[in-house]
């Protein structure tokens, strides 16, 4: 099914960098994506939203050519990923960067070597130039003095930031970001969110973010693809918020409320405002 644009004019494909057309995908016979058509505008932040198991991460893997659609076409620029040989795919992937949900950092390499790895593989840059570029990307994600640390020595938020820096190291034209906020505390979530926006503005790359974190999505996205059981809906955050589609309203309202509720509780927790409640529940008086 084709994604229903909230604004029909928004369906113009002239500025689309990545497109999925009538994509069918199934795992072990279980359908995940059914006749999905959607687009991701060039140079913008697009966020794919949806519930668990709706096929959000599958879309990123399809774009990266890590899996192939059972039917339909996935275009990066004008190239249909599904029709390319593995060798040709490697050429396309040089234009793509991907930040995996759990980082996917090479665990036998230090942070520096993880970032330097793609440069050593694909360029003939001098050692000094590689070092300069690695440190520039690390600074871009707000990290310093982590060169010699191994991935297992990093916190969850740091792993995400190193993974983001590595995804940026080859200056990709399309950055694929899988669940950047999962497993992060509210502060780290906001930090990653700000980083993604800043990187998009600085490098001007097309960014496709998969997330189920609605508050961040609504703040950072230029374009949203919402995967819903009855079919996907796409448009700008403002268009989605103004949508009369009951499925969109239910998804955004319920999840936004839930997320804001969690955030509010987390802020209370950090401020120590939870203490009276806890003590009240325990039947004790506040000292």
């Amino acid at each position, binding site marked *: 099914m084709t994604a229903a644009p909230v604004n029909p004019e928004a369906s113009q494909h002239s500025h689309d960098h990545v497109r999925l057309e009538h994509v069918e995908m199934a795992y072990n016979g279980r359908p995940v994506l059914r006749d999905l058509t959607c687009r991701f505008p060039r140079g913008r932040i697009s966020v794919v939203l949806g519930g668990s198991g709706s096929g959000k991460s599958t879309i990123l893997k399809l774009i*990266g050519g*890590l899996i192939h659609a059972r039917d339909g076409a996935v275009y990066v620029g004008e190239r249909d990923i599904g029709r390319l040989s593995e060798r040709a795919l490697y050429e396309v*992937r*040089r234009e793509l960067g991907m930040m995996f949900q759990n980082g*996917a950092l*090479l665990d036998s390499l230090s942070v520096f070597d993880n970032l330097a790895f*793609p440069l050593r*593989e694909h360029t003939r840059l001098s050692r000094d130039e590689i070092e300069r570029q690695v440190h520039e990307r690390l600074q871009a994600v707000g990290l310093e003095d982590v060169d010699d640390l191994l991935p297992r020595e990093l916190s969850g938020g740091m792993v995400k930031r190193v993974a983001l820096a590595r995804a940026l190291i080859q200056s990709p034209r399309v950055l694929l970001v899988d669940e950047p906020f999962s497993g992060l505390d509210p502060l780290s979530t906001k930090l990653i969110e700000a980083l993604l926006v800043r990187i998009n503005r600085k490098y001007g790359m097309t960014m496709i973010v998969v997330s189920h974190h609605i508050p961040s999505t609504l703040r950072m996205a230029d374009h949203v693809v919402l995967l819903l059981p009855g079919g996907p809906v796409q448009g700008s955050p403002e268009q989605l918020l103004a949508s009369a589609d009951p499925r969109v309203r239910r998804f955004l309202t319920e999840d936004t409320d839930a997320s804001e509720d969690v955030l509010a509780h987390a802020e209370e927790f950090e401020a120590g405002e939870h203490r009276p409640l806890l003590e009240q529940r325990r039947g004790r008086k506040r000292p």
Partner: protein
Amino acid sequence: MGVTSMIRALGHGTGDMVESLGRLAVFTGHILRVTLRPPLRLREFVDELFKVGVLSILIICISGLAVGMVLGLQGYNTLVRFGAEGSLGAVVGLSLIRELGPVLTALLTTGRAGSAVTAEIGTMKATEQLDGLRMMAVDPIDYVVRPKAWAMICVMPLLSALFIVTAIFGGYLVGVGLMGIDGGTYMSSLENAVDFGNDVAGSILKAVIFGVLVGLIATYQGFAAAPTSAGVSAATTSTVVIASVSVLIFDYFITALWGV
């Protein structure tokens, strides 16, 4: 279970086996193809030589010594019945060089290094590191699999030689030290019995073939593992079982066909 069900199960099993062999053949072809392509990845290859080879030295030496001592003891007790205890060096040496050295080394290396290779590649798959490499336009078979497979092939004859030497020394300790055979007799019977062109070259050939088997099976199992902890665990077990059985079966055919 009815006859139809049995035939169906047999058909499925055969089909799966043929499919696995086909995938293994494609995988092997891929390794050979990337082997001929630069970069050579010498650093990764040396790292793997260390992990597969150097870290296996202790277990190989201890096992070799123990096997040699048992062979020396059993050999002496048997030979002394015929008054042929002077041939202990030849019996120990020939059985180790022609058969036990390469086979036991392959089995030990499968248990220690082969399972580790499978677990490492399987874990890299489960943690999306292999997909991460692909997204960085790096072929994981080139970067991860090739150095490990070639290290296994190169290391196996060396470990086998080490096993044989320590085992011969173990036999010497028992035969000469405990049982009182003359040291010169032990060594000269060994030297006279062993033919380099036939026995030693055959031993090296066997070890190389076992290295190919263990290297391919261990890397393939890791690469084909289901990306879960249970999947990695199952793949590791499969490596040990399949590689061990394959080594024993191939050993028979190599011996039968080439007489080594």
